[in-house]
């Protein structure tokens, strides 16, 4: 491999295109294309999403109650979030409310799924960028970490595994679950199951605290000014908060769309179309959601962006007024005192992610302690009918929106989905653009440099 060599673009001009394909240690298929000007400086960079499967289309005609078991396959990393959002949307169509115990069980499984996901992302996917020496890309991965720090690797692998097994033990499946059903949950939690999960949850909380300490000691110190500037852009933020006190919610909350300056709108899940639009670019299968409600259209211009907002961990912490659990709230306060609100540095996603991990672990214990969690009334009977429903939850990668309409047989007549990563399409492009322009000068590129550009993508955990 010879990264420095000059090439000629097919159109015969002397302009050069640098291609990173595939973007690695992310879920999905993406390609980065960086156009260099005659001087070898990055002129424009794009992140192309290379695949599409068409869930919105092929959900049409399916009986709505079956859909929550289909949309899980949108993502093998965050199936629980699709599963829940879909169920909420179906319940909207059929006009039914789940019983209280089911609401608790759903949040429990959702939050539990957040835990495994954050461990996966921080340590397996992004971690190698910080934990390993820069340079050789062939060793920049979890396998190498396993070789270099087997105890850490073992611990991390086990924590992630345990999280999955706790879900599996209670709900049958951890990947592509079926246990949430329109109207509630498919099985109640027995006292014994609760007690078992509690033991695991305490262990998880210990690990979350360890992870934050570990990061503060080994990772965050590496956030030097250059790193803090990597892919830095200034945008608005979208996330879910508690309608009562504006604290962080991962489900059953209202959406808060914050402008770059910190002012915000709050709206119900159903109202998302009033605030969010989706823009289409001819060079990516993914669409580009933007804040239509701000009224100034869509632009990814680095100097003068229009309608751009971000989601995922950093966004959630920015929009939330507080976090309802003590340890995480303490961390949030510290975070805010360091970086302000809203914090804009792209690398801070990692930090925010670990604060959320702490929240999730605390929240699981809270939920398990709730007296209603073992109640046996877990499903309201549903009757198929025509209707429309919107279901939103906070997935690891951002606000997940499922919007369905059903026909009189209760079959899907129309489905619109905005998944977490999609919200971040425009910001990712901008961050990559920013990083490329900052880093690529005089036509010089190398592995390390290209990985820095990929890091700007990875922060978003697409």
């Amino acid at each position: 491999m010879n990264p420095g060599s000059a090439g000629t673009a097919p159109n015969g001009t002397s302009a050069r295109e640098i291609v990173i394909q595939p973007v690695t240690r992310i879920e999905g298929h993406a390609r980065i294309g960086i156009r260099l000007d005659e001087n070898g400086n990055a002129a424009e960079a794009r992140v192309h999403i290379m695949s599409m499967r068409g869930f919105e289309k092929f959900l049409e005609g399916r009986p709505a109650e079956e859909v929550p078991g289909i949309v899980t396959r949108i993502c093998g990393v965050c199936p629980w979030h699709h599963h829940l959002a879909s169920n909420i949307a179906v319940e909207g169509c059929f006009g039914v409310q789940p019983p209280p115990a089911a609401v608790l069980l759903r949040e429990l499984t959702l939050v539990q799924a957040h835990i495994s996901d954050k461990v996966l992302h921080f340590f397996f996917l992004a971690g190698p960028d910080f934990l390993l020496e820069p340079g050789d890309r062939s060793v920049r991965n979890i396998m190498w970490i396993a070789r270099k720090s087997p105890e850490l690797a073992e611990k991390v692998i086990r924590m992630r595994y345990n999280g999955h097994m706790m879900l599996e033990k209670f709900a049958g499946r951890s990947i592509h679950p079926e246990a949430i059903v329109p109207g509630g949950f498919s099985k109640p939690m027995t006292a014994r199951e609760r007690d078992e999960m509690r033991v695991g949850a305490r262990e998880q909380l210990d690990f979350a605290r360890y992870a934050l300490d570990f990061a503060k000691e080994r990772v965050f110190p590496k956030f030097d000014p250059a790193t803090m500037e990597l892919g830095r852009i200034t945008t608005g933020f979208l996330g879910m908060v508690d309608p009562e006190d504006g604290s962080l919610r991962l489900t059953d909350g209202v959406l808060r769309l914050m402008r770059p300056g910190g002012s915000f709108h709050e709206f119900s899940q159903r109202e998302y179309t009033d605030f969010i639009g989706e823009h289409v670019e001819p060079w990516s299968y993914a669409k580009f959601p933007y804040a239509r409600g701000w009224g100034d259209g869509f632009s990814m211009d680095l100097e003068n962006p229009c309608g751009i907002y971000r989601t995922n961990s950093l966004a959630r912490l920015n929009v939330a007024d507080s976090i309802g659990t003590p340890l995480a709230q303490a961390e949030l306060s510290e975070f805010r005192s360091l970086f302000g609100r809203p914090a804009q540095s792209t690398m801070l996603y990692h930090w925010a992610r670990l604060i959320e991990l702490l929240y999730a672990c605390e929240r699981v214990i809270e939920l398990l302690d709730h007296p209603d969690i073992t109640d046996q009334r877990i499903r309201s009977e549903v009757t198929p009918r025509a209707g429309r429903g919107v279901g939103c939850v906070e997935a690891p990668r951002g606000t997940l929106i499922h919007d369905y309409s059903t026909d009189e047989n209760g079959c899907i007549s129309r489905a619109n989905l905005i998944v977490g990563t999609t919200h971040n399409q425009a910001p990712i492009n901008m961050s990559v653009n920013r990083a490329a322009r900052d880093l690529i000068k005089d036509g010089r590129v190398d592995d390390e440099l290209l990985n820095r550009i990929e890091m700007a993508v990875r922060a978003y955990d697409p």
Partner: protein
Amino acid sequence: MPVTIAAEVLSGCTGCEIALLNTGDGFLKLLDRIEIVHMPLLMDSKYFGPDEGSEEIDIPRSDIGFISGSIRNREQLLLARTMRERCGVIVAFGTCAAYGGIPALINLFDNKDLFRRYYRTAEATDSASSPCEVVPPLLDRTFALDEKIEVDAFIPGCPPHPDSIADALDRLIEGRLPETPVQSVCDACPAKREGKGTVQKIKRFLKNARYQPEKPLGEMRCLLEQGLLCIGPVTQAGCSGKSGCAPRCIQARVPCRGCYGPVRRGGNQLLDMLNALASNGIDTKNLPDRLSMLRFSGAHSMLPRQVRKPSS
């Protein structure tokens, strides 16, 4: 000399790879016996250098190639072919690769329908023409792996149970092909079976099954016999792993949806299930969305294009 492995995800969700990680400690132990030489999800494998254009894909040679996901676009087709060329043994990893999986549901529609809906008529979308620059063109449908390349072994499941993955890897490392079960999901299912003759009509899953939560699963009546469309009997076994557990959906007290594909390779879940229902005198005419019995095995031309009225 460890066995070398390359892994690619095509049109899939990465769930299979997550399942691989769910082998837990097994995963760490595996790392002593195998060397992963290519796996974009977990390591920085690139198809080509930054300047090398995009037609020739480079994947290192390896002993075993794991491919998850089905084939939906030109790039994936190219990847599959390259993998075939560079790997000694090709394993169709997961149901998408083996039978098309959920993404093959799109075979009910054509690309025109899909694009129209996706880029022009979706609620929040600013209508535009469909993407066509740089992105690889879609094929006219979703294909299972063996429709396009020769496949040596199949590990179905959406996702496959970590036990099956570990087992398959064990055998592959020893130079043998994984074994495929010949029984169905019912093999591991403890639910009480007393016959389907009284069912008459299949209900939609709008109400939970009848069971007592504190009692073991063996006390619950078979979900199909409760009138729910459980397609476990026509679906290949494996989802319960080796530990003697019940099938995973049954553990959650929900009916099997068939994620392991047909019990007989080359079989047809829809045919087998409809036949079994019809043979038992159960009304098959009024089943809602019968085609979704092929929701995991819709490749291999199993699902026909649907001519549908455009939704209002």
